[in-house]
């Protein structure tokens, strides 16, 4: 349906991305920004908006915003101001949000994204800085939404955390790729921001949130009325939200209906959107320059210095890695997506072959991170330790199974790989005598299997290998055990 819709209509998409900066303190006060603390413990008169309290700008947040603007090829303002966005909502302590309006810090840039092998340039309208709001929890209803709730609780820990808003210009001419471009843009943006180390970017924790604008028009006609789908909080959802809106709007337009300019909510479960507040009755935000703050005038020399030390764009880095290690583009993309690119690189620098490093970080380590709900970089194992495990396997000191156990031990905080091997007694059994003894015992314990193997059913040796491995508590090399068993039984492994 989506493909057919986009043969008939031309899509225009736009993305507004909010990113919580990873500064140690909030935008206008000294409170900590750490996620997951007890409600209302990271608050003070300023971020609670108590009468008389005044904001003071966090310079680190200004710096991060400028670096984001530079990475997105934006012009950096030489003079700009914060503005007040006035509206009443209980999670906003002052009932206005200190934001930027017509004088953003960064304007007019772009981000090149790779979509199905070709480069699409997404134009950036602006990058500005504002404060985040608190969080409201509606209690008593079945849906967690305000309707049906008996009361609401507000947590102001998030109120005042610096929030960067990155707004694209309308992206036209994407055709069938509209949804893919949207996803690729948010993915690339996330990687750029990670590369800048300005945010931890946990979409699932809400530290990066997207609003997706979509409209359709027939070829040759003016742009259609757009809808804004709010709080789309995963890469996959960005793509689904565009698809869903394209399909919904196409049905409406085809039947002669009109698109209402409105905000819509995205539902993760169904992948569809439903109407929120209508823009036609939207609040007049009564923006005006924030009189409690002085204008910001970034020194051009300082901006130049920040520009000079920007990290390479992820796309450039990816290509370098590719060439260096002989990994495929798909591999590189997968590593970026899993947040293990740097870890793989560091592991290869510590001596491991690229393929092994890739397999560890994309395999069991990515899985471990997922299970623990942390980033791979937060696991209790270092790239050097992974390289050591790879080295031990290559030397025949560990089997694949033992290596996994060693890594589990390191992840469990039992020490370095060598310490885990020592404490868990995981070294490969190289004592031929002990091994022969175990083989004899296995043959004696299961003469039936031994007979089958002798009779030509070589696969029956598996049961005997299992017995030997059990007796040696997994410390034998399974391949060597198999060869030894076959030799004893006088069968050659064809």
């Amino acid at each position, binding site marked *: 349906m989506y493909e057919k819709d986009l043969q008939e209509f031309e899509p225009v998409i736009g993305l507004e991305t909010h990113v919580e900066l990873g500064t140690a303190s909030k935008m206008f006060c000294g409170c900590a920004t750490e996620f997951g603390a007890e409600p209302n413990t990271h608050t003070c*008169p300023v971020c609670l*908006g108590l*009468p*008389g309290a005044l904001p003071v700008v966090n310079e680190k947040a200004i710096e991060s915003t400028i670096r984001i603007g530079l990475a997105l090829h934006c012009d950096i303002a030489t003079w700009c101001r914060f503005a007040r966005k006035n509206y009443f909502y209980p999670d906003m*302590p002052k*009932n*206005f949000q200190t934001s930027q309006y017509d004088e953003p810090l960064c304007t007019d840039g772009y981000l090149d994204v790779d979509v199905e092998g070709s480069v699409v340039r997404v134009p950036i309208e602006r990058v500005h800085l504002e404060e985040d709001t608190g969080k409201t929890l509606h209690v008593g209803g079945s849906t967690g939404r305000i309707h049906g709730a008996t009361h609401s609780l507000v947590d102001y820990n998030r109120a005042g955390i610096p929030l960067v808003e990155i707004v694209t210009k309308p992206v036209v001419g994407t055709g069938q790729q509209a949804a893919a471009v949207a996803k690729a843009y948010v993915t690339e943006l996330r990687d750029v921001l990670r590369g800048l180390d300005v945010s931890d970017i946990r979409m699932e924790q809400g530290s990066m949130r997207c609003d997706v604008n979509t409209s359709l028009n027939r070829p040759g006609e003016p742009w259609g009325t757009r809808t804004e789908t709010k709080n789309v909080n995963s890469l996959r959802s960005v793509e689904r939200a565009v698809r869903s809106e394209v399909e919904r709007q196409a049905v409406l337009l085809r039947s002669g209906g009109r698109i209402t300019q409105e905000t819509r909510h995205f539902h993760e479960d169904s992948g569809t959107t439903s109407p929120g507040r209508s823009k036609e009755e939207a609040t007049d935000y009564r*923006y005006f320059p924030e009189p409690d703050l002085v204008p910001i005038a970034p020194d051009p020399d300082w901006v130049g210095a920040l520009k000079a030390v920007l990290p390479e764009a992820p796309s450039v880095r990816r290509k370098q890695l590719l060439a260096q290690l002989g990994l495929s583009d798909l591999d590189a993309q997968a590593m970026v997506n899993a947040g293990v690119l740097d870890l793989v690189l560091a592991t290869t620098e510590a001596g491991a072959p690229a393929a092994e490093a890739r397999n560890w970080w994309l395999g069991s380590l990515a899985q471990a991170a997922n299970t623990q709900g942390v980033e791979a970089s937060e696991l209790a194992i270092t790239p050097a330790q992974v390289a050591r495990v790879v080295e031990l396997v290559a030397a025949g000191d560990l089997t694949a199974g033992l290596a996994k156990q060693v890594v589990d031990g390191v992840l469990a905080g039992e020490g370095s790989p060598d310490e885990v091997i020592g404490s868990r007694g995981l070294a490969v059994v190289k004592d031929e005598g002990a091994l022969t003894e175990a083989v004899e015992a296995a043959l004696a314990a299961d003469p039936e299997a031994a007979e089958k193997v002798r009779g030509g059913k070589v696969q029956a040796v598996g049961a005997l290998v299992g017995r030997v491995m059990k007796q040696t508590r997994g410390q034998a090399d399974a391949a060597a055990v198999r060869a030894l068993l076959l030799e004893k039984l006088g069968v050659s492994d064809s």
Partner: protein
Amino acid sequence: MTDLTRLTAVETREAITSGQASAVEVAQAHLDRIAAVDDRVHAFLHVDAEGALAQAKRVDAGEVTGPLAGVPLALKDVMTMAGVPTTCGSRILEGWRPPYDATVTARLKAAGVVILGKTNMDEFAMGSSTEHSAYGPTHNPWDLDRIPGGSGGGSSAALASYQAPLAIGTDTGGSIRQPASVTGTVGVKPTYGAVSRYGLVAFSSSLDQAGPCARTVLDAALLHEVIAGHDPCDSTSIPAPVPPVVEAARNASVEGLRVGVVKELQGDGYEPGVTARFEEAVALLQSQGAIVSEVSCPHFGYALPAYYLIAPSEASSNLARFDGVRYGLRVGDDGDRSLEEVMALTRARGFGAEVKRRIILGTYALSSGYYDAYYGQAQKVRTLISRDFQAAWSRVDVLVAPTCPTVAFPLGAKLEDPLAMYKQDICSIPANLYGGPAASFPAGLSEGLPVGFQVMAPTLRDDLLYRVGGALEKVLPPAIPPLSWES
């Protein structure tokens, strides 16, 4: 024995250091005075006897020293003080006890100043008579049937009725100077950004400025020195040294000082008695060596309308936080009403008529489609007024004018006529829009009531105000209220 409440701040400190009286005795004398007369004056909304005596004991124990250690002070109720009620004269903050000290409060405490309590004011500092307080009006000690000025009428009345030798006011359009004018006291609005606004509950952020109030010029200067200075908690605070205000108050020479009389702030609408006292004061300055000339400030006539767009606009945003969700009054939260209804009911009940009027004005002025015509245009006028000041400074060192066109008017006289009330500040508003320092000094009486003389100076030249004020004080008889109602 000396009546401790009649002493100036300087004399009070001398009495304490000489052992003539302890700080506790001084504090107790003022608390007794409050108990004796404030039922009639109603200067205080809250008296913190316990805190005052505790601070006085610290002074007596030698824990704090300094020129104002042990001197009592009345704090306008717009300034936060940890644990002490702060209402801003509004119902909506009834019962709120801030968890933190304003920077001004903290500096006063550190200087050993004994804070007696919180003084009455027009609700959120919006008014010129203190009649807009939700807790009832304050009465002018010169005539209890008259207004003490506003918004800081509690502070000025406390000084004039000897309930405190020092007070803190805040001035957005004249709220320090006009009350000083009508009570015969000294009130100084320092340069915008000279005194921290941290903990000053905002009315209009770009105009609000806290300052010293006292019965003498030197006392005001000493207080100025304690509360002024850069504060990293206020982004608009100026990182510059405090001008030599105390030295200026002591020397008080106007020899060779170029004094400009503002042409636009005289004539029709000014009471003859006010004009007469003003002209006499100018002559007195001239006789002490000042060089007097008339200076035209052509845009001052637009100051009042510009002010009544800018200040309400900022106020409409600043006062949005009072919604009953986090602190203060909450109305209608019966479990059935929606959040919006509870917010609306709280604000409907919690705010008085004048505050609502200004919130509506400001909301309208900032609305989409009207912003340029109102708020935007007013900002341009503000720039023009600043240019008038800049042009004046090329010719004179200070500008002078009456502080207020009238003497204290009877309570209730202008309550039904907001425009007439707004015109009380016609002479004081230009300095707020410009941001420079301005002060009101006593200039004698008209029909038995005080007249104020206003001095305006370039930004960060607050010292010039004290030179002029001190020079007048030397030659004018002191303004002593008869307090006939006491007997």
